[in-house]
């Protein structure tokens, strides 16, 4: 019927308003409508009917892997998939240009971009290397005005970019910046003042410069749609009164993570306004002034008890442990607890953790010692993710945690899926034990902080421990190794690490063989980051068959030469091969300080700084 026809046409031109990438209930009726035999239906374009059907079906495809597969079936599928993709994920912002992305995917609602490689976080890459958000925001502003959500990781975002974001997308709802930099409080001020529909503003581990602008006051007056406000990484004071008013007029607020400039007294006032919170970052968790002893302390315990929905707790940026008992009422509900800024002892931890039976995610400092970890193991039977960070991140400092705590965790927390553990000493036995006790491990990152440190009991390399991990943990996709490791460890990884996608190597291996084992043995390898290991050009060449399947390869302070890298560049035209040196160094010899290479549809980027040479 003609009416039906024109309905469908309309839908193809404007974006469906209810479109989201998890479900699309409104569309099902159309599927039945056009397919269930309306015999008087006169369609001059049967293909169009098929395309409509396809469109409706493809809306249900959410996994990007499935979508990529679907787009390869034929031109028609490619086209329709592109039209129906609402969330666009680009794991390396230089793999594809903004123009190309917006040309293909015109109806994108959510953009997820990643920039710098992870080792840039550890000062291994000079600043101003790249990963600028600017060309992206400009391209999307022109081509995809329905963009509502932007998630960026390790990108440089300027104040102007934030302004453009707020001004170009009328319905903009969510901004999440993880490990980003380049902007300041002025940019935030402009952004929040213009985004009237803002639901989510999450600033996570980002560097925000203090332009002394009161951005909290810039949220528009009247009821706000805010559901999540995370600014615990913002290292500048905020206008508390304005924040309090904002929280009071945000009835949908579920996630609030405060920075360390919010005192515990101020926290109390906010909690009283927002007992509906599910995620809370407590700010400093200490009083603002040393003086004022005579003043009555608010009833923190009651405030916490009133937050019946609280499941995720973090903050404690300048904790005074005397106040810890305030959180007792909610321990039993917690599924996630982040104490990684709280320098507390085992004794201070125990009364808390012994009540956290439902805990699944726990981040903590090694100040709790092996004893603290034993307490965790005794109670947290549902633990899925554990991260233990060092208070004193140096190679030769005392190690409050060791294989003892590590093994205790493996014995108590059998459902463990992800572990990040910094320590000074470890044994193969403990690592082997974990490989057996925790077969569900997907992420295993062990950082023995002393370089080349062997098993401290046997004096042996840590090969067998990591070997056991790849052998026994059949679901492992991410691995970070450390300690004294010979080529044997990498032989194990190549042989058994069939699902490994991300591998981090530092100060390990004896020869090129190690890298060869990995490049030849791990078919799923996508991200490989290596530093200070004796791998040279020959090893690099052994991966030619695989580099197009990878997102990137990083090698710094290894044994690569310009010649070797040049060979790769010549052999693989779709690979961008960047040689990065320190800005103050002249190009002296043939040695390559840092190699960063990645597949790309665009060829060499045009925004590379002087210290980057693209071969």
């Amino acid at each position: 019927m003609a009416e039906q026809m024109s309905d469908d046409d309309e839908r193809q031109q404007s974006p469906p308003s209810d479109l989201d990438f998890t479900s699309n209930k409104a569309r099902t009726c159309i599927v039945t409508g056009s397919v269930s035999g309306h015999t008087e239906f006169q369609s001059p374009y049967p293909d169009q009917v098929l395309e409509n059907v396809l469109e409706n079906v493809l809306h249900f495809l959410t996994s990007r892997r499935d979508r990529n597969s679907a787009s390869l079936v034929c031109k028609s599928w490619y086209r329709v998939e592109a039209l129906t993709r609402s969330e666009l994920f680009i794991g390396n912002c230089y793999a594809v240009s903004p123009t190309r992305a917006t040309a293909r995917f015109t109806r994108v609602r959510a953009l997820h971009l990643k920039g710098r490689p992870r080792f840039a976080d550890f000062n291994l890459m000079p600043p101003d290397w790249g990963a600028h958000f600017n060309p992206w925001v400009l391209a999307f502003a022109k081509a995809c005005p329905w963009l509502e959500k932007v998630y960026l990781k390790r990108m440089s975002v300027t104040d102007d970019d934030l302004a453009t974001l707020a001004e170009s997308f009328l319905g903009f709802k969510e901004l999440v910046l993880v490990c980003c930099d380049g902007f300041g409080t002025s940019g935030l001020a402009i952004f929040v003042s213009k985004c009237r529909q803002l639901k989510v503003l999450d600033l996570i581990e980002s560097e925000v410069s203090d332009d002394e602008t009161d951005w909290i006051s810039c949220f528009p007056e009247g009821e706000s749609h805010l559901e999540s406000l995370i600014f615990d990484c913002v290292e500048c004071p905020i206008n508390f009164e304005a924040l309090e008013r904002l929280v009071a007029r945000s009835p949908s607020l579920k996630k609030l993570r405060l920075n360390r400039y919010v005192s515990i007294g101020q926290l109390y006032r906010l909690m009283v306004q927002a007992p509906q919170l599910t995620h809370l970052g407590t700010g400093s968790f200490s009083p603002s002034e040393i003086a004022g002893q005579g003043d009555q302390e608010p009833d923190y315990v009651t405030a916490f008890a009133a937050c019946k929905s609280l499941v995720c707790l973090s903050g404690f940026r300048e904790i005074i442990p005397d106040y810890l008992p305030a959180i007792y009422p909610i321990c039993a509900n917690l599924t996630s607890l982040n104490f990684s800024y709280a320098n507390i002892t085992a004794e201070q931890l125990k009364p808390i953790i012994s009540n956290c039976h439902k805990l699944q995610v726990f981040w903590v400092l090694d100040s709790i010692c092996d004893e603290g970890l034993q307490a965790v193991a005794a109670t947290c039977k549902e633990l899925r993710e554990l991260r233990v960070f060092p208070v004193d991140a140096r190679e030769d400092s005392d190690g409050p945690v060791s294989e003892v705590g590590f093994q205790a965790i493996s014995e108590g927390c059998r459902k463990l899926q992800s572990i990040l553990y910094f320590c000074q000493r470890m044994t193969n036995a403990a690592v082997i034990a974990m490989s057996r006790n925790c077969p569900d491990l997907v992420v295993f990152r062990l950082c023995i902080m002393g370089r080349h440190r062997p098993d401290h009991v046997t004096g042996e390399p840590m090969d067998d421990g990591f070997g056991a991990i790849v052998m026994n943990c059949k679901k492992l996709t991410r691995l970070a190794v450390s300690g004294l490791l010979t080529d044997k460890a990498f032989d194990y990884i190549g042989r058994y690490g069939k699902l490994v996608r991300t591998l981090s190597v530092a100060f390990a291996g004896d020869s090129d063989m190690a890298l060869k084992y990995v490049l030849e043995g791990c078919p799923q390898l996508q991200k490989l980051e290596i530093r200070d290991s004796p791998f040279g050009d020959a090893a690099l060449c052994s991966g030619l068959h695989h580099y197009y399947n990878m997102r990137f390869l990083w090698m710094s302070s290894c044994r690569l030469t310009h010649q070797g890298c040049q060979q790769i560049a010549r052999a693989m035209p779709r690979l961008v091969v960047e040689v990065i040196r320190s800005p103050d160094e002249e190009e002296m010899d043939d040695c390559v300080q840092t190699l960063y290479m990645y597949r790309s549809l665009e060829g060499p980027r045009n925004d590379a700084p002087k210290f980057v040479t693209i071969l």
Partner: protein
Amino acid sequence: MSSENGKRLLETDAGCLNFEATELTLGLPGEPRVTSDGGAKLGSKRGFSETVDLKLGDNSQEVKLGHSLQEAAKSPASKTQVVGWPPVRGFAKRGKKSCKYVKVAVDGAPYLRKVDLEIYNSYQQLLTSLEDMFSCFTIRNYLNEKQIDQVNGIEYMPTYEDKDGDWMLVGDVPWQMFVESCKRLRLMKSSEAVGLGLKTAPKYSSTN
């Protein structure tokens, strides 16, 4: 990352000054400018409080290159720190207080600097660092105004604005309390400081 931080916070119209020498670094005075992971660079735990060694005004108020550099600088880690190792993110300074940046103005200087009070443990360290930072300027003035005697240089009184907006002499209160309450620093020419309304009598005697 650390050096990047330093650069960004510098408010300067450096002009013909020797930029390298006066460059703000996030480190104790005397330490080399190694780019290293923030946590590692700043050395071991800094929680202890030193008794304030109020030798500030023993001989004079002058801000000159410190004799006390050895005392002031905490001994660096025994091993050379490797860049970016262990891989703990620099700006996630866990378990330790993060930066407390305050602006430092020097009378007569055309630019402001910022210092992070958190990296010092005592007045001694702070003042030595300020001497380093502004030594160039001091020397310049000394060259221009030949009547200043070689030993003393120009005399400056270190003052600060506290939370209540009052201007106080640096050294009045215990170090930690000073760090908490200091909003900005000003190295005032001694001649101008005479009229300064002081909340409490300074613990050290004025000079000369």
